[in-house]
């Protein structure tokens, strides 16, 4: 079976880009991707494009893909918007992998989201539409509330201390200091995180990722094409994806995401790897509790045991299994549609030795974990050298 390579990956800084349109951001991301490598990429070989996006900035809900194609020099390419809430570009990436396996030389996977150029009620419109509208929203809960319910239950079932959640925020902010594209590049102390105002108990302001504008683009290639331009391609070793009950009350458990478990199982199996082989990971920390759940559900730690590992620094940059060296969603930012392929960008940088001050020494296998909403959808991708 022929392999799939990641040929180039880039993104805009994530943050607040007042006055920029989706087109502007996507063009920037494309340039960043093309500049991420020394070799040139023949854009005419791109056969399929998959663009992750949730709200189109409130302005272009229909046909955004076509609009973006023409502005990045890909007029005429078969393109479509992919939507699975925050996992949109993770699924865009998966679809691009499939397109390569289906015979394309090149495929584009990316994402874009504008959230901060909107008034606050419009923002919360986007954030409030990915839970179960019929039940969760009419009970008055959007994601902060839903993840808070998960956090409270996790604390009840496993005695997870508040500090373990806070430590994820501390760690990710610290990591983002060395990430030029991160939204927040200042370290925060544990005390500050614990003292932050409550958003939905037990989650406070620093347990929640920000709203962000941004775009990311990844170009994938067939094995044949990749080997023409480089001796040392970065490969997609495995891909997995799954879905789950949308409303968390319909799941058997609140404290595990079965979609993560299924997706990582498929990704590892397709790569003939086990989780212990993975050197580092970008996981979906839309809330601190989400990072904790992720590293348990992915299998890095046993259920209920992640808190100790986090507090002991095992997931820090110089720990046993560095998690979210980019700063994660918490500090790097979370433009919903662009996050998934943004994680691929970090993996690509680390694996090609281009992660600057964040560089992890001698890494060979990285994992990207992208979740939609409160776990209704999930993709896991493994990249390696």
């Amino acid at each position: 079976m022929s392999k799939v390579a990641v040929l180039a990956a880039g993104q805009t800084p994530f943050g607040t880009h007042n006055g920029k349109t989706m087109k502007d951001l996507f063009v920037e991301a494309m340039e960043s991707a093309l500049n991420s490598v020394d070799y040139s990429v023949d854009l005419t070989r791109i056969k399929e494009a998959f663009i992750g996006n949730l709200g189109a900035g409130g302005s272009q809900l229909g046909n955004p893909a076509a609009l973006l194609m023409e502005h990045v020099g890909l007029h005429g390419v078969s393109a479509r918007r992919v939507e699975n809430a925050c996992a949109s570009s993770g699924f865009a990436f998966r679809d691009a992998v499939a397109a390569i396996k289906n015979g394309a030389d090149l495929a584009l996977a990316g994402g874009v989201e504008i959230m901060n150029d909107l008034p606050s009620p419009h923002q919360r419109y986007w954030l409030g539409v990915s839970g179960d509208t019929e039940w969760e929203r009419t009970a008055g809960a959007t994601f902060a509330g839903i993840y808070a319910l998960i956090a409270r239950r996790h604390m009840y079932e496993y005695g997870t201390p508040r500090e373990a959640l806070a430590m994820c925020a501390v760690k990710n902010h610290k990591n983002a200091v060395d990430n030029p594209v991160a939204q927040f590049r200042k370290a925060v102390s544990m005390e500050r995180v614990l003292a932050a105002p409550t958003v939905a108990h037990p989650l406070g302001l620093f347990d929640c990722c920000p709203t962000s504008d941004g775009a990311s683009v990844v170009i994938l290639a067939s094995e044949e094409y990749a080997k023409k331009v480089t001796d040392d391609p970065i490969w997609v070793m495995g891909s997995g994806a799954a879905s789950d009950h949308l409303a968390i009350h319909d799941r058997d458990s609140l404290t595990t995401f079965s979609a993560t478990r299924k997706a990582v199982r498929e990704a590892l199996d397709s790569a003939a790897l086990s989780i212990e082989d993975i050197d580092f990971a970008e996981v979906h920390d839309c809330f601190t509790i989400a990072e904790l759940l992720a590293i348990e559900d992915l299998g890095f730690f046993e259920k209920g045991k992640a808190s100790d590992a986090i507090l002991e620094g095992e997931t820090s940059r110089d720990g046993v299994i560095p998690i979210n060296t980019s700063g994660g969603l918490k500090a790097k930012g979370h433009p919903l549609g662009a996050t998934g392929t943004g994680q691929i960008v970090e993996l690509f940088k680390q694996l090609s030795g281009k992660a600057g001050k964040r560089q992890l020494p001698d890494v060979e296998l990285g994992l990207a974990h992208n979740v939609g909403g409160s776990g209704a959808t999930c993709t896991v991708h493994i990249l390696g050298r």
Partner: protein
Amino acid sequence: MKLINVFPRFTLDMNEARDLGSIPAKYLRSMKLGYDEDATTLAVNAFLELKELYPGELEEIVLGIGSCEFNLGVFLQATALDETKVVVVNDGELSGITAMEKSFESQIPFIVVDSPSSEDVLVDAVLSSAAVAGWFEEHDSYRTGRAEGTKYSRPRYSSGVFTPSEEAVLLRKLKKYTGEVTVLVSYDVRAKSRINSVVHSVQCDLGFTGAVLPVLELSNPEINSGTPVRIVGSDAKVTLHSDFLGDVDVIYQNTPRNYPLSKYLLRRSLSPHDDPGRTPQGAYISTPVYLSESASRYRLEAVICPNCSSSFFPPRPRCKRCGGKTRPWKDLSRQATVYSITNILKGASPTEFDVLQRLEGEYLVAIVELENGSRVITQITDADIQDIDIGDPVKMVFRKIYNQDNMERYGYKFVKL
């Protein structure tokens, strides 16, 4: 046969059962009206309580609806009255009396609802106290006197204001039966009224431009030292005149929270869920859809899979376990257990609940586990976050949820047991 008298805002605060001849009376303490309550929700909750007291036995009830907004359609859907006949009495501010009379005649339970407006509620409340104290039974002249146009006649009640001497007479009679004077205070921001009597005076200078909380002054020389005076309900600030010698037992004084005036006016002039057209109503559920789901929005009607006997709430067309086609089963018990709990503060609410979050500061969202193991997300009402823990028993009540398309949407919430 029991009496459940449901008046918002104040309590008929007599806890022992009183024997009104053949009708034993029992009083339920009612809470100060919450932001998610109205006449409709009170009536539904009263019926649910009645139904639990007399499972399968309720053939007929009398429903007295005062001069208030009442959604009879919602009441009927929420109570799903299959075996019970309801006689609706709507007689303006006399609804309470008429419903009670009907109930006494036919020996069937009644539910009376009304909404707070200063005079009406005072009238009804005072008269209801009299009724349950047995006063009616002994004073037929009261009833006939009304019909004949005596000083207790209908027009008098319509204006809702007693002369000091009439009120004194009534209250004296009450005192004779109850051994105490019950003073009920309520007010409505829309009313501009001044109610005075020899027993009490309530100053309510109300209106949109200025409002003061009512001040209750007790200055009746008729109340001697030693007479217990019980003040129930509402937001009265009690001051005692220096010549007052009675014993005052204040059950209910002041609003529980220190409401700034602007917040109070906002609360009374706006439904808490009202945000007229300014924010986008994202994630829209249409009115026909919402109303068609009453079995799972107003009640806990579960579905069952005939194949493997698994049951589910909220309902789903296909069984989670075996994929079989489900069918409607039964209303689950109102008792549930808290599975997880959180509070929603600034920034965490969907836009439809923004105004509520701003007015109340927070509201509680929980996942509760029902009798068949199903879990559902819902709100916990009438409680603060520190009062609720995982594992606490809770009970379903009927409340207002939010406002959409200018219509109040009702549904269930849960309260701590």
